[in-house]
């Protein structure tokens, strides 16, 4: 059997900053090896030489579409070591920003999936158009459309601005109506459904074995979500469900994210109603006390863990970032084995992989 080596990437459209080395026989992929590291910046090394506050902007950059989760994941073990309790209102605002960010990130991913990986230009416009409204909310609350550096040890940097809740309610109302259109035009569109259904099936046992996280995991019938299993922020005070599908194919990975957006709207409505009064932050020392801690945060792309070792100085002794995209990459060579080249973009897109988050 003579095979042909095919490089997919590393130029941006189609694979992001990564390369898939595919060994093909005809148009069947015999073996696929992801080659990552094109955007490796040594975040973990840099973090050891900066104080904990200066690290915040740097360590949230790996995923600009989902930076609030990376930010929180980095802050959480530090707060644990410092034994600083964040006031209730601070936790509320954090949870709120994270859920807005989750919807924005899913819309971004869905736009890329539609526009770039399945040639559905309307979804591309829908996704980026609707996301803009959420970026406006980000800007109103934090001052930045992306990469907010908004969470600091002890709380958040600013209180809710005047008129924010009204604007949020308005946006959620619009979004709820428009999700119906997204469903009709994209997710229930026979052209897309036929393209994605049954493609790249990850069975439950394999999902557990490969240790995938987030929507990729939940589309394979494992209803695990850090927000439910070990609640942080105020997730234990709100009612929501964990959408999961048992099919494990590319379509259900996007259906999970779609349902999650609806759940995020539900969560945000409850948070808007019950926002407590009080301080938004407590003072925290500018040191990482001696010890080690690991945090768990459910980001848009799955569970993120930051493992932090402190030695009592103002710089962390060691920061280990374990991100959703890195863990989900384990599924890619597995899913690409034996599929047609034409299915590669669909499978790759369904993982919602963010190269920089994996490379750090």
């Amino acid at each position: 059997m003579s095979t042909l080596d095919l490089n997919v990437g590393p130029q941006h459209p189609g694979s992001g900053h990564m390369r898939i080395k595919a060994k093909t026989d005809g148009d069947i992929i015999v073996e696929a090896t992801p080659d990552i590291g094109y955007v490796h910046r040594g975040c973990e090394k840099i973090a050891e030489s900066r104080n904990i506050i200066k690290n915040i902007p740097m360590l949230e950059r790996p995923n600009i579409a989902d930076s609030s989760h990376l930010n929180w994941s980095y802050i959480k073990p530090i707060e644990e070591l410092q034994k600083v309790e964040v006031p209730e209102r601070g936790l509320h605002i954090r949870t709120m920003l994270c859920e807005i960010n989750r919807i924005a990130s899913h819309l971004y991913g869905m736009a890329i999936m539609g526009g770039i990986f399945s040639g559905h230009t309307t979804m591309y416009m829908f996704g980026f158009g609707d996301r803009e409204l959420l970026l406006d909310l980000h800007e109103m609350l934090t001052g930045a459309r992306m990469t907010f550096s908004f969470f600091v040890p002890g709380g958040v940097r600013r209180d809710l601005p005047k008129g924010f809740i009204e604007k949020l309610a308005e946006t959620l109302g619009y979004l709820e109506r428009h999700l119906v259109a997204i469903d009709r035009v994209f997710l229930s569109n026979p052209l897309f459904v036929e393209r994605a259904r049954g493609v790249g099936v990850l069975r439950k046992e394999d999902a557990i074995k490969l240790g995938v996280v987030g929507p990729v995991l939940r589309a394979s019938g494992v209803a695990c979500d850090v927000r439910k299993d070990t609640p942080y922020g105020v997730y234990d005070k709100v009612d929501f469900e964990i959408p999961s599908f048992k099919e494990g194919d590319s379509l259900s990975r996007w259906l999970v994210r779609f349902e999650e957006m609806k759940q995020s709207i539900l969560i945000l409505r409850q948070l808007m109603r019950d926002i407590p009064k009080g301080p938004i932050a407590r003072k925290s020392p500018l040191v990482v006390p001696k010890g080690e801690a690991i945090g768990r945060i459910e980001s848009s792309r799955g569970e993120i863990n930051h493992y932090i070792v402190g030695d009592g100085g103002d710089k962390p002794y060691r920061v280990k970032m374990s991100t959703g995209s890195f863990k989900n990459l384990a599924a890619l060579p597995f899913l690409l084995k034996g599929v047609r080249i034409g299915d590669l973009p669909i499978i790759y897109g369904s993982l919602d992989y963010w190269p920089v988050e994996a490379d750090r």
Partner: protein
Amino acid sequence: MTATSSTLEQDIAITIKEHLGSAVENATALDKGRISVITRKEVARDVAAWLQRFGLDHVLAVSGVDYPWENRLDVVYFLSSYSRDNLKHVVVSLKIHLEREKPSLPSLTPTWESANMFERETYEMFGVNFEGHPNLQKLLLEDNWDGPPPLRKDLKIPELA
């Protein structure tokens, strides 16, 4: 609530200690869903196999930590569970102390497939040799990197000092 949950973690730590006996140097319940287990590299495979059967079915992260003045390099595996409801909220850290000179330990990828890429990363960043790893190659660094393992403390970057 904290009281009951910490008892659960203590129960898990005691179970681990009872089953693994002298193979683990230490198994302690830390606060809120964190359990620390320290073992030796000679028995790491057996310990891992038992923990896997116990229900810790995937790896959240593998990290190296370098302590040059103690001539020690730690490798830590963070484990959790998808299939056991009573372990979902738990993170067990499995720590192995190694010497800094040519550190090596048996790869745990045969036990946990999810450790595969994390071990490759620890290999290139800390120079730890994972014996029996199916594909121990560089992952993030460029192929022609010939400096010391970058995350070791003795690699100093002048611009960052």
